[in-house]
C-alpha cells in the first residue's frame, strides 16, 4: 500500500512522468484493466502533441525547410529542454531559434536559426499592442534646439541577418514550386502589423540602423549618425517619410514631453 501523496507531490510526480523524467507516478494510478503507465502515456502523448503543434504553427518556414520528421524530433526535444511556462501557448517557443543554433544535426543549415528568429518576431508583431499612427498633417510645434525622439508602432520588429533570411522565408512559405536563388548576402528585415497581417520587408543597412536607433529611444540626430556610419549617402527624410507612410510613427517627444 502506497501512502497517499499530497497534491504537490502527486502533480510533481505526474509532470515528471509525462515529461519522461522518470519518477514513479504509476503507483498512484488506478489500473482498471490497463497498465497505469499506459494511462499516463495517453496524457504524455496529448501534451507533447499540443506543444509540438504549437511550434508547427509558429514556425512554418522552419518546418518546410527541415521537413516534418526532423521538425517533430527537434520540437519534441525543445519542449523538454525549454518547458512551457505559461497557460497561454502564445508565449511558448521563444527560445526555439537559439535551440536550433545549438542543435548539431542542424548545424549545416546555418541560416535556420535566423529564419526561426524571423518567425518568432512575426508572432510578436501579430500580438503586439495597437496604436494609432501619427497624423502627418497635424500641426506640430518643434523647438529646433531640442532633440526629437520618435515613438514607433508597438508591432515594429527588426532583424539583421548575415543570411538572406527574408528571401529564404518567402521561398519556404510559398505554396509550391518556388525557386530559390541566393547571392549569399545578408538581409535586414523590418516587420510590422499591416491590417490583419504581418508585413515583412527587406531594407538597406543604413535604414535598418536608423530604425533600430529610433526604436531603442535614440533621438533623430543619433539615429541619423548611426545610419550615416553604414552609408554616407543615407537620406533621413526619405526613411522617415517611409515610416510615416506605413503608419509606423505613432508619436514623438521633445524634452521628455510626449506628444501624439
Amino acid at each position: 500500500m502506497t501512502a497517499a501523496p499530497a497534491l504537490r507531490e502527486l502533480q510533481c510526480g505526474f509532470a515528471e512522468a509525462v515529461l519522461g523524467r522518470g519518477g514513479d507516478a504509476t503507483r498512484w494510478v488506478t489500473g482498471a484493466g490497463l497498465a497505469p503507465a499506459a494511462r499516463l502515456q495517453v496524457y504524455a502523448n496529448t501534451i507533447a502533441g499540443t506543444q509540438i503543434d504549437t511550434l508547427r504553427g509558429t514556425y512554418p518556414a522552419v518546418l518546410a525547410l527541415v521537413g516534418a520528421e526532423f521538425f517533430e524530433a527537434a520540437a519534441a526535444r525543445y519542449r523538454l529542454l525549454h518547458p512551457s511556462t505559461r497557460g497561454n501557448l502564445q508565449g511558448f517557443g521563444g527560445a526555439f531559434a537559439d535551440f536550433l543554433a545549438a542543435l548539431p544535426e542542424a548545424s549545416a543549415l546555418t541560416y535556420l536559426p535566423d529564419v526561426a528568429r524571423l518567425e518568432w518576431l512575426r508572432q510578436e508583431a501579430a500580438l503586439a499592442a495597437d496604436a494609432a499612427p501619427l497624423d502627418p498633417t497635424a500641426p506640430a510645434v518643434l523647438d529646433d534646439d531640442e532633440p526629437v525622439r520618435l515613438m514607433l508602432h508597438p508591432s515594429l520588429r527588426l532583424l539583421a541577418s548575415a543570411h538572406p533570411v527574408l528571401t529564404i522565408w518567402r521561398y519556404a512559405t510559398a505554396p509550391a514550386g518556388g525557386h530559390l536563388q541566393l547571392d549569399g548576402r545578408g538581409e535586414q528585415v523590418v516587420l510590422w502589423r499591416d491590417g490583419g497581417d504581418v508585413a515583412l520587408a527587406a531594407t538597406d543597412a543604413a535604414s535598418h540602423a536608423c530604425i533600430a536607433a529610433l526604436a531603442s529611444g535614440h533621438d533623430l540626430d543619433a539615429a541619423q549618425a548611426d545610419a550615416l556610419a553604414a552609408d554616407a549617402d543615407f537620406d533621413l527624410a526619405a526613411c522617415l517619410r517611409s515610416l510615416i507612410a506605413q503608419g509606423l510613427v505613432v508619436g514623438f517627444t521633445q524634452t521628455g514631453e510626449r506628444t501624439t
Partner: protein
Amino acid sequence: MHDASTLATRPIPAAAGIGLRAPHLQRVLAERPRAPWFEMHSENFFGAGGAMLAALERVRSDYPLSLHGVGLSLGSADALDGEHLATLRALVRRYQPGLVSDHICWGAIGGIHLNDLLPLPFTTEALDLMVSRVQQVQDTLGREFLVENVSSYLTFRHAEMTEWEFVAELVRRAGCGLLLDVNNVYVNSVNHGFDAHAYLRAMPVAAVREIHLAGFTRKTDLAVPLLIDSHSRPVDAEVWALYAEALDRFGPVPTLIEWDQHLPELEVLLAEASRAEALIDDRRARAA
C-alpha cells in the same frame, strides 16, 4: 472601437451556440450566420492587440459571447498565475462576456505548464484548493465564474470521493456556476465504469449555467477501450441521449457544440447546434 463603458453584458440565451475557432472567424464576420451565441477561447485573445482582438470586437458587437479558458490551471498546487488572471480580468472587463469559464483540472506545477486539462485526485485537499481558487477568480473578476468537468483517462487510488461528489461540492462551496460537459460525463462513465445517470442526478440543478457537447474518439489499441475527448467528430448518439436527459433535469440551458480537431465547414457545426436547439425547443414546448 467601442468604449468599454458602452458595452452592456449580453446574456447567453438558452439556445445552442457553437465554439468559434480561428478558421471560421472570417466567414462569420463576413456572412453573419444565424447563431444564437458564440464561445471563444480566452487565451486566444491574450495578445496586447492585433487581428484576433479586432475580430473579437466585431463578434462581440453582433453576438452574445462566452469566454472559455483552458489555461488557468485552477487545481494546481502552484499559486494561480497572477499575470494570466490579470489578463483575463482585463479581457472580461473590456468585452463583458455573458459567461466566463475554465476547467476543474490542473495544468502546471513548479512553474512548468503542461498545457493540458489534467485530472485532479478527488480528495478533500484538492477540493479545498479548488474552492479557494474559484473564489479567488470570482473575487478578481467581480462576477460569477463557471467551472467545467473534464474528460479523464485515469483516476487516482487515493480518491476520497467520486467525481460527481467532488464537482457538486466544489460548485456548492465556491458558489460558482457549473458548465456541465455531457460528453465528458459520458466519456468518463465509459473510461472509469460509472453510471452517467447517477452523475447527472448528483449535479446541483440551480447551478447549471451551460452545457457542452462534443465528439469523442475511441482508442482501441489498448487492453481496454478508452474514449478520448478529441472534439474531432459529431456528437455521439449516446451523448445525445444523455443530453436529452440533462435537459429534462436542468431545463433549457445554453448549450455549446465544441469542435477543435479536424474542424469541418461551419455548416456542420451549425447543423449540430440545430439538433441541440430542437431538443431545447421540445423541452420548452413541453414546459409551456
